């Protein structure tokens, strides 16, 4: 469903060029739960952002359902992100002025769904991630683990084809981290949602149906579980 072909990414820091990805080719299959692993600086977050159309490769192409989406205008990429993708960031990334419920239904509101429809779905998702009793709380009134589960519910609200999670457990204690990973796993199994997540924690690979390892911007190993 999503393919990245011969993609490279070079960041420019003044006159210095820093390669982050080097000629990476990867195909994401529908319904899989892919784990991208690697050390810090290996390029795994860069790969995730390019796959998620948040960033563009310096070279190479991205195909979504066979269509080249790498060079589309930001307006179109924004629409694709809204309709077909969900994101869970490392740093919770909720909007501080919105309650948990409002954070969850905002993308659905943007998509133009009816208020009753998106509110009901947001409530269902918050219930699914165990936060129904926290839906009127602002992010600052929630723990890190709770915020991350709200972010997962938000990522799910538009019934995306694929969810990207960038080290979703990195800032959580082990119990909260486990809870978040189990929630993603549950979504993958029950909703057949394709999930691509980045982790440097070897214990997370048990949730993945496939693991891709990055080293210095190159894929070095693909190991089916």
């Amino acid at each position, binding site marked *: 469903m999503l393919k990245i072909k011969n993609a490279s990414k070079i*960041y420019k820091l003044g006159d210095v060029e820093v390669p982050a990805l080097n000629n990476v080719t990867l195909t994401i299959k529908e319904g899989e739960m892919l784990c991208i692993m690697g050390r810090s600086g290996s390029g795994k977050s860069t790969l995730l*952002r390019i796959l*998620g159309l*948040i*960033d563009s490769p310096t070279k190479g192409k991205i195909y979504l359902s066979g269509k080249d989406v790498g060079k589309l205008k*930001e*307006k179109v990429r*924004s*629409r694709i*992100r*809204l*309709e077909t*993708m*969900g*994101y869970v*960031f490392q740093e919770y*990334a*909720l*909007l*501080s*002025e*919105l309650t948990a419920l*409002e954070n969850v239904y*905002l*993308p659905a*509101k*943007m*998509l*133009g769904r009816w208020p009753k429809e998106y509110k009901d779905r947001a409530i269902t998702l918050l219930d699914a991630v165990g936060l129904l009793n926290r839906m009127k709380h*602002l992010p600052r009134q929630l723990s890190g683990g709770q915020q991350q589960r709200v972010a997962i519910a*938000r990522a799910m609200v*538009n019934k995306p084809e694929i969810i990207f999670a960038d080290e979703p457990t990195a800032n959580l204690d082990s119990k909260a981290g486990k809870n978040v990973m189990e929630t993603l796993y549950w979504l993958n199994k029950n909703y057949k949602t394709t999930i691509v997540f980045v982790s440097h924690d070897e214990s997370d690979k048990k949730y993945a149906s496939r693991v891709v390892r990055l080293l210095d911007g190159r894929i070095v190993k693909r190991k089916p579980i």
Partner: protein
Amino acid sequence: MRKSISVANFLARKLVARSNWGLNFMAIFMIVIVYVNINFTSSLLNGFISTVNEKLISSQTGNVVVLPKNSDGIESPVVLLDDIRKINGVAGATETRSVPAELSKGQEKSLAEISGINPSTYGDVFVTPKNMIEGEFLTKDDKDKIVLGAQIAGADISRLELYSDSLKNVHAGDKVTVNYPGGFKKEYTVKGIFLNEFFESDLKTFITDNEYGLVQPGGKVESINIKLEKGVPESYVIDQIKKLRSDLQFRTWEERAGFVKGFTDTLKVVNRILGFAAILVAAITIFIVTYVDLINKRRQIGIERAIGINAPTIILSYELRALFYTIIGSSIGALVFIYAVVPIERAYPFKIPYGKVFLQLNYNNMIIYAVILVAVAIVAALIPAWRTIRISIIDAIWGN
């Protein structure tokens, strides 16, 4: 589009309701201050101009001045005055003839224009008879009586602008000598002294038209001053008189304003400059508030964009917030101005040499200023919002 407006409105409401109330208060307070300031300045200057113009009309020119086309004076003035008074919208008309002369009392001398007036009709046009500070105004049958403006008499009022050129200590009941052109000299008793607080008119001296006929035999009426009812256009009355006579020319009070016109024109320019400065302050305020807020919200905006909220929607949310600040600020400012500033100023008006100045409330101007503020706020909020949106999502969220 509808979806964008709906989401932008939703985000703007939450931005205002759940963000720092200190920031909200400061932004609204600044708009209130700017709005009150711009209206205060404008109303004060308009009040000032209005006071000066009102003094000019009521003590110096009337609304319309009728003059002869040639230097022989106005023919058949009595008939003409009767006809003028019959025109709809004319509140009063009076005739004047005048001659320059030198007044003296003891060693003190002063140059003045001696006007021969009809005391019965002069008060129909001018307020001078009501502004006597000593004695009384002239009556039809007065003989050897003269009424002096305070700037001529002096009357021991040393604060007068032209006191040093006046007779300094002349009071009602005193005798003054008038030296007319040609060497004719006559002594008058000062019947009264007036102070219109408009120094051009306070330089006048009056004798009755009968008395004038004695010192200037055959002197013709040189001008007719007309007072109009409120709201009657000068052009209408001028057109009516033109139908009656063709040997006349006309001047409106504005055309006769002389230095006053230059003065008020300057004030109007000052008014515009101060208004522009106030609008600029408002723009900078909105810009700073939006800019500072956006610096703190860069990551949030990056997240909004990453989850699919498009750039125009995000910009619109900040525009709507600026709109909210401006509308609330202008509304509160309008209430403060109408119900606090204006009543207080009316109770304690500013005093200038021309009299009291009252703030002149102009609702049309208030609406125009509010609309300008809104337009300025939209532009001021757009610039920082647009600049922030141009940053890549990666830089916005992770600050690379």
